[in-house]
């Protein structure tokens, strides 16, 4: 069987698909996150480790590690769609990259923030210019730089290509973050990101962590698709299908454009703050 994948590369085809996926992913994400929180707080031991255990603050692991993973995976998605866009010159790929970037930045910030509040009780400091912390901070700046560069260029096609190039160059940070563990011998240093493997983790802790990771993934899908729909409408607003879609009911089919009949609230001259095209 041959599937025509390029059929879904058209914004007009993907717009309703994304609209159906958003609530599904959103509800599943919420359920998984709540389950992970329950498991992480009530089914896990209060101490982690042997002779010098981490106390209750280790529970930050249930958001810190999933957020750090997501920050890297989402960057891979961002750079991947950028590369597909550059190679095949498909509009939807660039839009996907743009839709993922803010969510990736949010998870990178969460990883840094929760790391600080884990580092204080366990390492005695909120921040240190350790290789992994520093490279994660650079990843955060890459996300910000991607969004800033894209919004700084008026011509959206040129903005797409410039930002995509930045995203691909920034890929070099991912292996750096992955291998930036500066503590080869855990006996000699307190624990700035010790080498660890999933197999050594207590199974309840692992369950909560992986459940939260899956929840974060689905959350990312939901927010990226929701953002993608906005981007599609903005950038295809001169196309016939968007005009027909919105001329009929002003987008009321989505259930959120309820005030569309009230033209006084809309001011076309006003820049759309918070909206990224």
């Amino acid at each position, binding site marked *: 069987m041959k599937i025509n994948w390029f059929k879904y590369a058209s914004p007009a085809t993907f717009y309703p698909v994304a609209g159906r996926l958003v609530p599904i992913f959103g509800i599943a994400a919420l359920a998984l996150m709540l389950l992970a929180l329950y498991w992480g*707080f009530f089914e896990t031991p*209060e101490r982690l480790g042997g002779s010098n255990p981490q*106390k*209750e*603050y280790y*529970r*930050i692991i249930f*958001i*810190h590690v999933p*957020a750090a993973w997501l920050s890297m995976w989402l960057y891979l998605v961002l750079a991947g769609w950028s590369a597909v866009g550059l190679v095949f010159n498909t509009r939807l790929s660039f839009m996907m990259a743009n839709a993922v970037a*803010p*969510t990736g930045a*949010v998870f990178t*910030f*969460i990883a840094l*923030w*929760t790391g600080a*509040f*884990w580092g*204080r*009780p366990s390492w005695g400091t909120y921040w240190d210019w350790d290789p992994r912390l520093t490279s994660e901070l650079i990843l955060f700046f890459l996300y910000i730089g991607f969004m800033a560069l894209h919004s700084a260029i008026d011509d959206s096609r040129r903005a797409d290509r410039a930002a995509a190039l930045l995203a691909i160059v920034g890929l070099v940070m991912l292996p750096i973050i992955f291998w930036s563990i500066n503590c080869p011998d855990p006996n000699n240093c307190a624990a700035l990101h010790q080498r660890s493997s999933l197999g050594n983790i207590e199974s309840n802790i692992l369950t909560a962590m992986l459940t939260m990771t899956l929840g974060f993934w689905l*959350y990312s899908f939901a*927010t990226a698709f*929701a*953002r993608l*729909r*906005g981007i599609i*409408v*903005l950038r295809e*607003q001169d196309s*016939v299908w*968007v*005009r*027909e*879609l*919105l*001329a009929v009911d*002003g*987008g009321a089919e*989505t259930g*959120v*454009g309820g*005030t*569309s009949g009230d*033209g006084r*609230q*809309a001011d*076309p001259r006003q820049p*759309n703050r*918070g*909206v990224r095209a």
Partner: protein
Amino acid sequence: MQPLLDFLSQGGYAFYVWSAFGMTFLLLVAEVISLRRSRRTILRRVGRLARLHTQNQPPGEQ
């Protein structure tokens, strides 16, 4: 009551634990809210332009 207080105190590490979880919660909620608001803004703006466009066209003509 005591179990709840024990839970909230997290063995004396409440500040660190709840700062981390609280900020995560706030950021995720803020992202969802800002997405809904920006979607409403986009639909209102683009929808208005679309209606203006179709009104200027004689019916039956594309």
